[in-house]
């Protein structure tokens, strides 16, 4: 094979490269007369490690991006001392969090206290297995891709409730319960919007949804759906204006109050990875995934995802916080009817066309 052809394929036709790696490794494995099940497990482990490592780095980048972006919106600079333009700031912060003392308050349920951040992080990281980062770069293109996403993001509720309860602190408890109510309420409009997309694409597989947008992106067909999905996702990841669970001025960090050191770092990373997650899902469902003209596919994916991330950050720094009863009202009385209407209209139009 021509060297330049291989380089071009690495950037533009990654599905060919991935398929080649699979076939070659299976052939090599079979030549050693070993069962292929073990090779599959090894490949999946390697893929998982790659995904987690990539996500951790990405979370660091997003935190830095948020600090600079919000600073520019607020007439200030953001971190610009550590490293070129402040890029090493996050490394400094990570080291600081790692060496901080891990304070566990007395009279807490220590096991639950420890597990809560793990569950929240798990719920976030596990979803990335079905996100198509580029052409063929998808850890596991499940048949039920979208359903898997919606199901796993709901797991975060358990972690948050556990964290709020195990902290032995009234503020944390209030924060945890608010968050549980919020996430559960906003999942329903989110699911209905995603259902509209699935109706149009005809399949739950993420790869199919991206392929179905090769002519036109779904945002042109479903602008209302896009806006609603952004709002509902904003609420699901506990971000302003829906950040009651961590409302700094009312509940002093809500359910995260009693966490310090690495456990806090896990919550923190989970939050920022969540932003990336919902942006990636929005990109895949509405903005055509990794497709685009002459740039490599995964570059397009990141451009689109970071565009949505910027919108989410913009919203956060502009609006005040919504009160808890307004939040529930908004989900059940405003978003849900609109989402239902969207679904019905989509179904009717699809039937007619």
């Amino acid at each position, binding site marked *: 094979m021509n060297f330049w052809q291989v380089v071009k394929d690495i950037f533009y036709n990654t599905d060919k490269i991935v398929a080649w790696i699979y076939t070659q490794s299976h052939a090599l494995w079979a030549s050693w007369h070993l069962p292929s099940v073990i090779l599959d497990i090894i490949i999946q482990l390697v893929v998982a490690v790659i995904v987690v490592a990539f996500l951790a780095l990405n979370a660091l980048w997003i935190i830095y991006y948020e600090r600079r972006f919000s600073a520019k919106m607020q007439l200030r600079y953001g971190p610009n001392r550590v490293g070129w333009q402040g890029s090493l700031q996050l490394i400094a912060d990570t080291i600081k969090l790692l060496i901080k003392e891990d304070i566990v308050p007395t009279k807490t349920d220590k096991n639950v206290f420890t597990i809560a951040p793990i569950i929240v992080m798990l719920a976030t990281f596990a979803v990335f297995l079905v996100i198509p980062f580029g052409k063929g770069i998808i850890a596991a293109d499940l048949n039920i891709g979208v359903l898997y996403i919606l199901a796993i993001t709901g797991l975060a509720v358990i972690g948050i409730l556990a964290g709020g309860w195990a902290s032995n602190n009234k503020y944390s408890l209030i924060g945890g319960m608010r968050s549980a109510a919020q996430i559960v309420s906003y999942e329903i409009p989110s699911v209905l919007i995603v259902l509209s997309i699935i109706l149009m694409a005809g399949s739950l597989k993420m790869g199919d949804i991206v392929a179905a947008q090769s002519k036109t992106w779904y945002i042109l067909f479903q602008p209302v759906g896009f806006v609603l999905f952004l709002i509902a996702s904003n609420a699901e990841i506990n971000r302003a204006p829906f950040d009651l669970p961590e409302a700094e001025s*009312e509940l002093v960090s809500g359910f995260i109050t009693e966490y310090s050191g690495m456990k806090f770092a896990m919550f923190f990373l989970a939050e920022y990875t969540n932003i990336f997650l919902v942006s990636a899902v929005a990109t895949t469902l509405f903005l055509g995934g990794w497709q685009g003209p002459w740039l490599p596919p995964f570059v397009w994916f990141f451009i689109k995802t970071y565009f949505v991330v910027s919108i989410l950050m913009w919203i956060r720094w502009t609006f005040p916080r919504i009160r808890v009863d307004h939040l529930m009202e908004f989900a059940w009385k405003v978003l849900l009817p609109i989402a239902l209407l969207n679904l019905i209209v989509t179904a009717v139009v699809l039937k007619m066309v």
Partner: protein
Amino acid sequence: METKMPIEIQSRDSDEYILNMGPQHPSTHGVLRLMLKMDGEVVKDVVPYLGYMHRGMEKMFENKKYEQIIPYTDRTDYLSVIPNNWVYCMAVEKLMGIQVPERAQYLRVIMAEINRIMSHLLWYASFGMDVGALTPIWYAFKEREELMSLMESASGARFLHNYFRFGGFKADIPKGFIDGVKKLLARIDDDVDEYEALLINNVILTNRTKGVAPISREKAIEYGLSGPSIRGSNTAIDVRKDEPYGVYPKFNFEIPVGKNGDTWDRCKVRMDEMRQSAAIIRQAIDALPAGDVMAKIPKIIKPAPGEVYTRVEGPRGDIGLYLVSDGTEKPYRIKMRKPSFSNISAIKELIVGYKVADVVAILGSLDVIIPEIDR
């Protein structure tokens, strides 16, 4: 000796619990402690604990000479520095019969209104933070920085100016001061419009604050509210109009009032007050006469024995000072009537029945400053 809690939960079976919004809290504007009895998210009862910042100011005043007290009046309320200075200097000037020259009177009005704008900007910033909007603080503080630089050029200190003296000012304003103020006035109206649109007219905020904690005119008068807290209830009470002092009668300005007395009205009144202050400053600069800024006062300040009560309109309300002099160099008794003390007395009326999230917004709309309450 067993201390009895002022709030008790009646029975173990109810859903009530006691939440302590302790003295250390990001939103209680200082060291205010509120013991809330809650039922779920709704507040059933509240007891404020004051005194965390009691410094014995009024007792300290009895041991200091009159001119030594002026810097202390700054620090009773660090955001309404000029009105505090003014009420004290006015009291002593009344007792000693000192006439402040015209130019000093106009300058006093300009400084007081600049201070009002600065205080309202800080209120805007902290109110924004309380309700979760993290951006307005930066815009408001940028304006405040420019104003603080102006005040620094005039008084020598950015923040606790210690500016007034008995009989006027120690020195005239520096050269670039009026130009600086004019530059600010040129853009203050647009800026206040922008800040209002960003936070106060934001639909999320109006949903959170309209109809929340209304207080009727009669109740507000009963509790002794003053300043924007009572003007939100459609009551045009303002010391500058009711008992004018200085050269305020010469200026043409309105008293903004709200309609319903709820949280949003109190916020809107403060934004309108910034505009009115800008109008007053414009008129004062146009009419600023030349002349002395300091009257002839004796070297040793010994007011005649007697008592006097003076009032000024501070950003938070009606600041009063009761001075009893016994003819010596040190005052016999100074009592300060502070608006935040009366404003916070209405907290139970305002908060009970609303949710925890509203507590913070309501406190923010009252604009209490704790050092002022505790002195």
